[in-house]
């Protein structure tokens, strides 16, 4: 899939931002964002709506001027005045910019006119790849949102990019369509395409991404491999009679980031179930039942941003959630 570009991109990081910031008047949309996306990985960029994901992507694609900081693609600086490095990039940002009165096929052919190396066969191949062969002759104004997203993805793939930057690509898709896109992204990654995926659907990231950056209110709150984030977010549930006593005792245990009483149960985060049991027994408290719940990315994210119900991230902020993992956390968040 990848590799037909005439760029010689040998650098390890295909997309990098350094101290990237964007201000709209008094509003600071993005603050000191440092990203480093490695070649061949599927990189998740997650955050709630309004957290600054699209603004960041706008700057990465040379559509917006950073207030400070820089963007590098394949090692080359990208600014709105110099976007040459983007010729090896495919992107989908919001609703794809197609000509509504033209058919899907004609829209792709129009884009292909800009690149002589793309032939009619490639257009058909891409239409087939995104599942639009049947509807390719219809005008885009009659397409559903999901079909437009697929066409946008097709446009992004047309020139066999080495880096794919996608902003909410599953918007408007039904669950089956979402799954298809996820599978498609993994297939692209297997073919060597680097994928930078922005989304607020954490479930999506958990399933396809190798590493993630979490964004909240324009600030980077965590960055690292998905597996590390999830293992750091393990939740231990203990049922016992002396809830209050046990909660007090566990709060003093090193590594514990949150202790939440829930009825007859206590939920403990930050340490393993074995550590909890040993600690309780040492203090004369015998658990009647212990379960070990692996946190999903959503609960990790909510804990980090303090947006979850009953979230308790302690004095050290999100950092304490991942004490043993090589995760970069912005302590100012």
């Amino acid at each position, binding site marked *: 899939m990848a590799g037909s570009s005439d760029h010689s991109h040998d650098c390890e990081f295909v997309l990098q931002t350094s101290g990237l910031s964007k201000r709209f008047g008094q509003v600071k949309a993005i603050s000191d964002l440092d990203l480093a996306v490695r070649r061949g990985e599927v990189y998740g960029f997650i955050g709630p709506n309004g957290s600054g994901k*699209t*603004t960041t992507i*706008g700057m990465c*694609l*040379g*559509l*917006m*001027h950073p207030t400070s900081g820089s963007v590098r693609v394949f090692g080359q600086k990208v600014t*709105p*005045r*110099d*976007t*040459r*490095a*983007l*010729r*090896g*990039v*495919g*992107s989908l*940002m*919001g*609703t*794809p*910019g*197609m*000509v*509504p*009165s*033209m058919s899907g096929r*004609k829209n792709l052919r*129009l*884009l292909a*006119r*800009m*690149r*002589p190396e793309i032939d009619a066969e490639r257009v058909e191949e891409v239409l087939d790849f995104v599942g639009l062969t049947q509807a390719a002759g219809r005008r885009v104004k009659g397409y559903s949102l999901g079909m437009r997203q697929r066409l946008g993805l097709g*446009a992004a793939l047309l*020139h066999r990019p080495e880096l794919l*930057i996608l902003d909410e690509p599953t918007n408007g898709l039904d669950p089956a369509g979402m799954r298809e896109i996820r599978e498609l992204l993994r297939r692209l990654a297997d073919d060597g395409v680097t994928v930078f995926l922005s989304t607020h659907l954490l479930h999506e990231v958990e399933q396809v991404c190798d590493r993630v950056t979490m964004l909240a209110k324009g600030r980077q709150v965590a960055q690292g491999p998905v597996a590390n984030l999830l293992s750091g977010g393990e939740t231990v549930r203990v049922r016992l009679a002396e809830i209050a006593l046990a909660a007090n005792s566990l709060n003093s245990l090193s590594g514990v980031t949150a202790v939440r009483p829930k009825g007859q149960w206590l939920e403990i985060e930050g340490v393993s179930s074995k550590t909890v049991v040993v600690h309780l027994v040492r203090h004369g408290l015998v658990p009647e039942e212990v379960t070990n719940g692996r946190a999903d990315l959503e609960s990790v994210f909510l804990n980090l941003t303090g947006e979850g119900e009953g979230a308790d991230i302690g004095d050290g902020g999100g950092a304490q959630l991942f004490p043993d993992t090589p995760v970069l956390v912005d302590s100012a968040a």
Partner: protein
Amino acid sequence: MFVNVLRAQQTKTLASGVLWVELAALAAITALLVTLTNTMTELKADAPVTLAGQMNEMLQHAGTSTMGHVLAVVLAGAVMAQEYNWRSLHLWLSQGVSRTTLLWTKLVSLIVPVALFFVVTAAVTAAVAGGFLYVEHGSIGPVAGELVDLLRTAGLGAYGVLPFAALALLLAVTGRSMLVAVGGGLALTMMGEMLFVQIMGMIGGRALDLVAYLPGSLVPGLLGMEIEAYQPLEPGAAAAVIAMYTGLFMVAATLIFRRQDLHD
């Protein structure tokens, strides 16, 4: 890159619905004007009795009257503003096309549609006037020998329309909306120039010479026409001023476009 982007822009501009509506309207208006010229006694008295003469008159009319200017403003303003609405600008720019290339190819891609205005004018005039002349005189007069003159009139007329296309692009980039681009362009073209001419007429004397430098007054100079109200510029000077206006509007549009943040 410029040529490749131009090819894509040309395809897009020629597929624009606005262009085909304009061409249809132009054909209808031309047919009406030619019919009136050949049927109304007062107009008929001054009308040329050859097809070439009538075609030349209609081509001059398309280039010098507000009709050609309005068509250029509407087309350029609409196609550029639509790029913002459809977000196709985002798509193209994010594929590494430079903003300067995008804007200038847009202007160049408008040359063929503007030329089509004159082709349609010539074709409709030929069909309608040819019919009337043949019925009345049994001949349409010599055309082949007049072809160079007709092409010259059409070519210079099309060239004279360029500042209006550039102005509409500037307004579209500044306002990012069809209303600003088309509305503002039409207001400046139809009312702004007229107001300026009236004010200069009231002042009189040397002030009236300035009228010859208005974008709308340049094509008569280019075609070497005689105008009662003012003294048109010499053809060379008129051509230079047309290039200057086009360049100025495009440079201003480019500077604004390069500074813009393109977000939803």
